[in-house]
């Protein structure tokens, strides 16, 4: 009664050897061809693939530093959120009118729920003995459809997202406290300038005004006539006030 390197037992109460699963390697003789032992032959090949993969992975890590945006600010409501890329297809699905509003349940639960349940139960939905993709057209077809849908939705979400603006809105900014008691600051507040340009003029959905290189006249012009996505006519005050805020903005150093 010797197994392995041979063991002797005192007061033997263990399960007799016959009842234990014999330690015979799995037999692959039904698949004729070259089989090889897991260790060391096959493991070496696996690890070589692993090593090459690791080199590629580390190159990616070194080249692309992980992003970190500015610290979360619950009061900043102008931020447009974006999930991680592998949730984009779900995020995009919820944008469609048939999957949002009154049909939110459809987009948020029924469609993804059905898809994931089908994935989970695939072996019970596709029960035939055939394994080749072409021999089971329904399984293959639905999966291809799902993959196309995921790729399409992800593409739509990523393609219509303004990545430049997203990068800007999340950037870590140097915030310099401005004098909030200044009368010009009150005028800015009253004309809703701060909701886009930030409470310290550090920028938000609009560009930062602190440390701007524009001249006083240019600032006055933009405040009245707008620029880019800023519509004209936002500033409603008098010319005197306009001069006041332009000088105030100009006076703020970065």
């Amino acid at each position, binding site marked *: 009664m010797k197994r392995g390197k041979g063991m002797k037992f005192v007061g033997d109460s263990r399960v007799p050897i016959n009842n234990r699963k014999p330690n015979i390697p799995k037999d692959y003789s039904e698949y004729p061809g070259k089989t090889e032992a897991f260790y*060391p032959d096959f493991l*070496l090949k696996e690890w070589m693939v692993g*090593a090459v993969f*690791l*080199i590629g992975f580390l190159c990616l890590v070194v080249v692309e530093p992980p992003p970190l945006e500015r610290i979360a600010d619950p009061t900043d409501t102008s931020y447009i959120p974006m999930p991680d890329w592998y949730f984009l297809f779900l995020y995009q699905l919820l944008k469609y009118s048939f999957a949002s509003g009154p049909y939110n349940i459809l987009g948020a639960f029924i469609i993804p729920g059905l898809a994931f349940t089908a994935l989970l139960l695939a072996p019970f939905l596709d029960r035939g003995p055939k394994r080749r993709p072409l021999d089971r057209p329904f399984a293959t077809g639905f999966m291809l459809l799902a993959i196309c849908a995921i790729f399409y939705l992800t593409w739509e979400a990523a393609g219509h997202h303004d990545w430049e603006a997203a990068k800007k809105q999340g950037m870590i900014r140097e915030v310099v406290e401005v004098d909030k008691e200044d009368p010009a600051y009150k005028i800015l507040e009253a004309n809703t300038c701060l909701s886009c340009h930030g409470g310290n003029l550090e920028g938000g959905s609009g560009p930062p005004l602190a440390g701007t290189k524009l001249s006083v006249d240019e600032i006055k012009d933009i405040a009245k006539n707008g620029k880019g996505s800023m519509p004209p006519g936002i500033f409603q005050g008098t010319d005197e006030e306009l001069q006041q805020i332009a000088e105030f903005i100009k006076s703020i150093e970065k």
Partner: protein
Amino acid sequence: MSEQRVTRRQFLSYTIMGVGGFMAVASVMPMLRMAVDPVLQVEAGGDFIATTVKVDELTNEPTRVDFQFEQEDGWYTSNVTQTAWVYKDDKGEIIALSPVCKHLGCTVNWNSNKDHPNQFFCPCHKGLYEKDGTNVPGTPPRGPLDRYKYKVKDGVLYLSRRASAVRGA
């Protein structure tokens, strides 16, 4: 074939160890380097902190001096108060002793115990030190009290952030 020094199996084993070793080192090395970073940091605390004590006011008698500085602890910055027992010795040299007992880190006090006048006394385990910080043999401490480095500028006493051990005392 049986006389070859390295068998095929051995060769494969060595290669596996090599490849596995590479994977382990390449993936874990950055993590270990990050973990040991604090050990490899060079202490930057070379600067001296101004106290409120004028050097002229110091006497032969140890007085308690508190001084504050801003301490950076990773991502956390705080104000820390350090304490020193400062006096001038017979030669006029300034001595600034740390109040941290060299036994288990309690705080010692000067002249606080009636049985041991003119000695530093630690209430935790009755540790005793002479005035110059030397531990009294037969009491728990394992060495003399640490000393702060000092500097005098415009008559004001400056002390180092941390006290350092007295060597060979």
